């Protein structure tokens, strides 16, 4: 779905079938699951869009989200007296940067590697997760990560427990009726 490429007709049919099967199986196996608008879009409208345009990833919002990171990283380079002035410098620079787009700055694209060509095959390959080594982080960062992790687990647990509890309560009320 997020692949920025044209999808073949067979792939589109397969995607539609899998998406609907996934949602139906989810709803039947876990009756307390509420089909959210995102799940509903995945189930019905994403296959429609894929059938019509041939791709979803090419039209996706990935580029907009990427601009957030770029702005966060480079906003300091375009500082001005006011925040709006800094934004204006940023937009001016990016307007000039369009001169270096692929259309203006054509380069020979490298042929992508074959499927599975860059997959780690040996046990000692550094691309494997166990050979990469962990990121170097200080003690405070690690403690902060642990706190965030516990907070996340607690929130998810409470939310999930509430959903299950509500479902069981409704189910019991229905049985009583």
């Amino acid at each position, binding site marked *: 779905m997020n692949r*920025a490429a044209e999808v073949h*007709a067979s792939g*589109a049919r397969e995607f539609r079938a899998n998406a609907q099967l996934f949602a*139906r199986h*989810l*709803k039947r196996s876990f009756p307390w699951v*509420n*089909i*959210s*608008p*995102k799940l509903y*879009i*995945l189930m019905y*409208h*994403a296959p*429609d*869009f894929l*059938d019509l*345009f*041939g791709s*979803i990833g*090419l*039209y996706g*919002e990935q*580029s*907009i*989200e*990427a*601009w*957030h990171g770029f*702005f966060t990283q*480079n906003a300091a380079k375009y500082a001005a007296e006011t925040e*709006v002035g800094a934004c*204006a410098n*940023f*937009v*001016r*620079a990016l*307007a*000039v*940067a*369009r*001169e*270096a787009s*692929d*259309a*203006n*700055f054509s380069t020979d694209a490298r042929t992508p590697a074959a499927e599975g060509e860059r997959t780690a095959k040996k046990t000692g390959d550094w691309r494997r*997760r166990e050979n990469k080594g962990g990121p170097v982080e200080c003690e405070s960062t690690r403690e902060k*990560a642990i706190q*965030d*992790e516990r907070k*996340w687990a607690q*929130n*998810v*647990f409470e939310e*999930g*427990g509430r959903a*299950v509890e509500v479902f*069981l309560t409704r189910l019991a009320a229905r049985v009583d009726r």
Partner: protein
Amino acid sequence: MPLGRFDRCYCRASRAKRASSDATSHLGCGAPPASAAQRSDSQKSPEPDDQWTAANARPSAVENFNTSDLGCGACLSAQARIEQLRSSLGGATRWALRAQRAAGDLRIRLLTALTTTPSRSIPPPPSCPEFLEALRRCALRNDQNGPALQAIAATILLPGSPPEPRLKWDNGVECVYVRQRATTKPVVGRSQRYKRLASGLKSLIRAVGADSRDAVRAGAVTVSTADVRRLRIRQLSEPSATSLSPEQQLGLIAAYGISFTGFKGILRGIGGFRLGLSSLPVLRTARQRLAGLPAKKVAVMGSGAHLVSLKGAVQENLDALWASGSFVEKLLRDSHLVPIAQTHSYEVPSIDAGSIAAASPPQTVKDIHVTLGVDKGGTPASVKIVAGLVNQRRPHRLRNTIFVGVCPSHRDDYDALSSMLGEHLDQVAQLVREGVVVGGERRAVRLIMSGDYEALCTVHGHKGQNATMACLMCYCTRSPSRTQAALDGIYGTMQDVDAPAPAHARTSAHLVSMAARAGGPANDQLQAALRSIARPPLFSVDPRQIVPIPWHILLGITLRLLRLAIELVISCRGRPVGSAFAFEVAETLRRVVRGRPAPYHGGVFIGRDCHANFSTKRRDLPRPSQPRG
């Protein structure tokens, strides 16, 4: 050999002569006094003389002297001397005869040379084919011609850019020898280092003109193999001047956030002028020229900074795509998933026609696909407006998109977005209505709305994902309820997953009607009329052209599945086990997967660590332990 005055016999005769003062005894004892001519002859006889000939040789007195006339012992020595002189005379006579014969030959050859006319015609040098033929016949291969042949070959092969040598064999096969570049290794072993040192030393000797080996040994002169290597590389791979215009170089500088000071340092460091890079004054001039273009003008409004002409920017990108041959046709598909050919050009509709029809042109009309997205995010928080052209290879690349504007704001509600997008609404409407000209042909603009679900709802005046009709693309209700039972019956609900397709898709006509209301939809209207559209839509595009937010769906469903696993444990094993399992899942995510939930957006997994780790294959990840209890 005549000894003259130093002869032993002569001395003895001289002593005898001095002893007998008178000349009375010269008949018996002592050598007869030789005349001046005889003495000179005897002295001259051993020396060859060109004037000496047999014809003018006079018989000397010695030849007429008879040794039998001598009677005493003293005269015997004189006789022996006479014999010796006679043999010497014979040798001289033979030598004279040979010399006379040689002189005669020389005179004959001289006369012959003078009388014979030399041939004035110098044989012409052999032609190249004749030379080649002789070379092939091995007629020139000998020790004498070997160095000359090597010199000829070196003259052909050694210049800087020789022609391609071609060798044609008798069977018709032609071999072409092409010069190949051989890069020098930066790090070599000892043997190769010595070879390079010797080569450098030889070059130095050739350049200086004297044997500088001693100077090198003494350390006065340094021969660096690095210099030799650099010279060779420079000769083999001479960098070519770049063909980038100053505007393109400026675009690269801006795209990568390099300051002019940094670029100046790079320019000096790598010898940028030799590579054709522009100087800073040229770049500043180009920047001023670009800033004057309508497509690149920026206006500062109260809401933020915006491009003045979105249409100009789109047209500029399309022109560049078409000129570089990078324009990619995007065809829609029919119900059988077969691409529909675009055969008709776009015609600008009349003013009376609605703009929504232009936003979704017929499928057979040639068009371009333009995405327009709005999203809030980043630090500091700001709302970004980005347009994209899908008719290219990499539409998501940041340099290939059009950054329309950025508004520093922590709010992205309807009022804020309407003020931000208000600068561009007319531009978008004009772009959609008039289309663009690509390759001399007018094409329609198919506007496709993108962004997160909240922004999409806001742009369309929708109440959001918690509204009764939560979907932007259809009219189905969110969940069955007693108050909206009639709507549930008509349009269906999202929870009805058995339906093959949504019963009623949202139409653009409804959006247009909502947008046409001057004061916006009244709140007291029925839900059946409003259909969760609370405010006038800012854009009234076809709902089928709303992107189904693939990235946000991935984030949301990933988190939902993790929560579902915890819910499953809670429902099956109880809350204590579910709580422990939730903490174990969180720890596994941190330690093994190395993905950290964001402290906002409900704890979704976003960030660089999630990008890198979640793309790996699932089989590489260990599973969390089975919940106990």
